[in-house]
């Protein structure tokens, strides 16, 4: 009867094996030893010793399901006796059935005290988080079992590599508690060396190359850079747990504005990981195309009007690569829109091709959420201070809420975090550069103290420093806008086209704090430039009309026509002989008659 049952089961297994063998090329055999034992057991089905050996082999090779099948057979045949409980406990542990395994192993121990049961119980207690009980069992065991750590490591490998991660983690914790030295030796952490970039590296680029090396005494499972996986072993089986790993990587990482923490994480096949980070400061802080403000829009519109009458080359401002612009305008409280508007207007004015002498690459703008203490710290340390040269002229506009006292000039960022600008400005003033222009704007609790402080900085500094504390309204914006876009025919000098802090201060009704009267040039005034240039052209026009022997009436008509600066193109063409006198007269007459008709 028993023989029949076994024979039937073996036939069933054989059918399954044949199917599997046909389906895939791999063999079903687990090991030659097991095959031999199975064959012997087939010949002697009542041999309890062989049965026990087979179950033990199945457990050793981590085949708990097959072991359980054999235990069921053996129990049905009453072959196992007392050791059956122990084997069942081992099977349950192998299947990660922690609580049932604990009960079975406790019973097995009480039936027949043995160290293997105690060790497994200690491990299982750790696995279910009962470190106190587990620790007590294993510490007692360690006193009489010098090889406990080795045994734990063997168990760890067995459980981890067969996917029993909960118990594996429990064993690792147990080993860490009972033998920290072995733990550190067996579970070394992967070593990560970042070769480039250096920590606190600053870049204007949107990407940077990260070169690093990972070295480990165990196989590596995964390596990530930020959220990106740069290496993944996947399901690939580990040939040897002592296989060493050494690999260099060069990866591009995206850099956003401000502080970027690039973290490399390497995890080995046992789940142990280490991390290494490098800080890269994204320094672009360029203008976002979508940003718009009424004042800035007006400025551009007016410049466009100028452009419709004046050829572009005549409007372009001469760039000075040494001029740097930093606009910081926090958007806090009810005045947030106002500061955004002013900040953007000034930035656009200072960098516009017609008015800006600073190249856009040398200008940075922090508006709205960009105005954070962290970004201010990065930009002031890494750019404002570090990249300053002998030729640098720094134009600094800071608008927002200020809390000024003798101790510090606290400025509130967009998260209402305080940033003390006093040391930053003092440091900037101490650098040997070509000059600093400081514009403080916004709600300032104590203007007098701030002005006194700025005056002290300007007086003690060896470089030209112009500073102004604006009154907090936008009269200087409308004034500046009018000044730089409305061409006047009043007499001007060639220098009038230069725009300094005095021009802004004049519109705002504020006083420029400066050691020397001459103001540092911060921009070009296109309206004044065109006005002056046109004045010169009119003088030349009169001369040329004389040379060309124009009749008095024609001369008067042309001069009347050219009175308006918007005739810039026609006058220029006539002066350059691109337009004949006759054509110029026709053009002037045509214009005057149309004007007369429109007046009537």
């Amino acid at each position, binding site marked *: 009867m028993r023989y029949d049952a076994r024979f039937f089961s073996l036939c069933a297994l054989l059918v399954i094996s044949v199917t599997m063998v046909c389906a895939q090329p791999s063999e079903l055999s687990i090991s030659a030893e097991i095959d031999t034992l199975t064959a012997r057991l087939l010949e002697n089905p009542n041999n309890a010793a062989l049965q026990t050996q087979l179950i033990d082999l199945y457990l050793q090779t981590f085949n708990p399901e097959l072991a359980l099948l054999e235990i069921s057979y053996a129990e049905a045949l009453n072959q196992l006796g*007392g050791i059956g*409980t122990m084997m069942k406990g081992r099977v349950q542990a192998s299947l990660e059935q922690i609580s049932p395994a604990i009960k079975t192993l*406790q*019973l097995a*121990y*009480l*039936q*027949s*005290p043995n160290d293997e049961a*105690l060790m497994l119980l200690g491990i299982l207690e750790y696995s279910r988080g009962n470190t106190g*009980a587990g620790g*007590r*069992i294993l510490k*007692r065991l360690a*006193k*009489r079992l010098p090889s406990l750590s080795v045994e734990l490591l063997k168990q760890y490998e067995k459980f981890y590599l067969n996917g029993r991660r909960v118990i594996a983690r429990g064993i690792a914790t147990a080993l860490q508690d009972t033998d920290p030295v072995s733990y550190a030796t067996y579970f070394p952490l992967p070593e990560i060396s970042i070769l480039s970039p250096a920590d606190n590296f600053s870049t204007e680029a949107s990407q940077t190359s990260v070169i690093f090396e990972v070295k480990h005494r165990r196989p590596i499972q995964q390596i990530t850079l930020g959220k990106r996986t740069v290496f993944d072993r996947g399901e690939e089986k580990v040939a040897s747990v002592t296989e060493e790993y050494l690999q260099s990587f060069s990866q591009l990482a995206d850099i956003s504005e401000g502080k970027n923490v690039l973290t490399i994480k390497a995890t080995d096949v046992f789940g142990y990981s280490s991390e290494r980070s490098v800080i890269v400061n994204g320094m672009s802080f360029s203008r976002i195309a979508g940003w718009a403000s009424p004042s800035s829009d007006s400025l551009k519109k007016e410049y466009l009007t100028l452009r419709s009458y004046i050829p572009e080359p005549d409007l372009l401002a001469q760039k000075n690569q040494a001029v740097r612009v930093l606009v910081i305008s926090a958007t806090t409280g009810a005045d947030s829109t106002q500061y955004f508007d002013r900040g953007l207007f000034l930035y656009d004015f200072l960098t516009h091709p017609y008015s800006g002498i600073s190249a856009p690459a040398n200008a940075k703008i922090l508006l709205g959420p960009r105005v954070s203490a962290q970004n201010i710290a990065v930009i002031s340390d890494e750019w404002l201070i570090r990249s300053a040269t002998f030729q640098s002229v720094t134009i600094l506009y800071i608008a927002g809420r200020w809390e000024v006292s003798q101790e510090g000039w606290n400025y509130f960022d967009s998260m209402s975090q305080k940033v003390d600008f006093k040391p930053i400005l003092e440091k900037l003033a101490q650098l040997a550069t070509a000059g600093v222009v400081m514009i403080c704007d916004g709600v300032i609790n104590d203007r007098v103290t701030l002005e006194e402080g700025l005056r002290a900085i300007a007086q003690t500094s060896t470089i030209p420093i112009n500073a102004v504390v604006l009154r907090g309204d936008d009269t200087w914006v409308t004034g500046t806008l009018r000044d730089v876009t409305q061409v006047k025919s009043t007499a001007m000098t060639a220098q009038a086209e230069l725009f300094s802090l005095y021009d802004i201060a004049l519109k705002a009704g504020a006083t420029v704090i400066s050691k020397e009267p001459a103001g540092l040039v911060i921009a070009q005034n296109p309206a004044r430039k065109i006005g002056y240039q046109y004045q010169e052209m009119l003088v030349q026009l009169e001369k040329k009309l004389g040379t060309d022997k124009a009749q008095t009436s024609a001369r008067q008509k042309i001069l009347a026509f050219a009175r308006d600066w918007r005739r810039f193109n026609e006058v220029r063409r006539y002066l350059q002989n691109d337009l004949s006198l006759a054509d110029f007269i026709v053009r002037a007459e045509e214009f005057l008659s149309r004007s007369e008709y429109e007046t009537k």
Partner: protein
Amino acid sequence: MKRNRFVSVVILLVAWLDIVAAQNVQYLHTVLVGSDGNGRVKADGGEEAMGDLHDYFADSFGGRVRNKTVIQLSKKQPIPLGDAIGKVYSSCDSADLVVSVWAGPWQVDQRVVERSSLISPQGESLPAEYVLNFVQFLPAQSVLTFVLSPQSHEFPTEILQDFPQSTASGGKHIILVRPREKMDFDDVVDAFVDAVKAMRSSKELDTNNDGWVRFSEWLREFYKKAQAEKLSLAGFGIAKFPDYRLVQVKP
């Protein structure tokens, strides 16, 4: 339909309240292991008293009995010691009370105290750690284990050094029973049996007058009785659990 559900909820609630309020011990299990030593180490008296102790404990606790496991190590056992204890483990419930007595001489291993074992003629390998694990592993929340050993071959107390000396609450306890004066092991066992026997009449030890004798109240009274018998008790709290009710003294 709704009514049925309501009734079911009420029944469940009453049952739950009953369980919470009662917390009574369900069954008493006794495990009494005695050894008179072997040819080289004689410790008469360890085995003889074990047979009677079960009845004294049963009388004293007054509850229902599920297991009586008496093992006299010099005699041939019907089933091996491990199997007998395994049976107790398997049939034991968390609300049960297990009382065990281990009486006999111990061969102490000075280097590894856990290896110290109970000396018996059968050569049963019963390490000292087994007693501790027995107490720890049992699923019952109330476990009382008395260890009696001759002064010449004492139970190694070092194994209990991680546990606090306390018997004030419910839970699991190991109590070492020693004579206060020089006394033969035989007399120590007799004195212990007398103290247990004396507990049979201790129905008036309901100190908080709630109508129930609690596990901790029983223990306190037993300390007094043992002292009267010139015994000294050293109790170690192995695990803390709620204080269970043992005997109802007032209906």
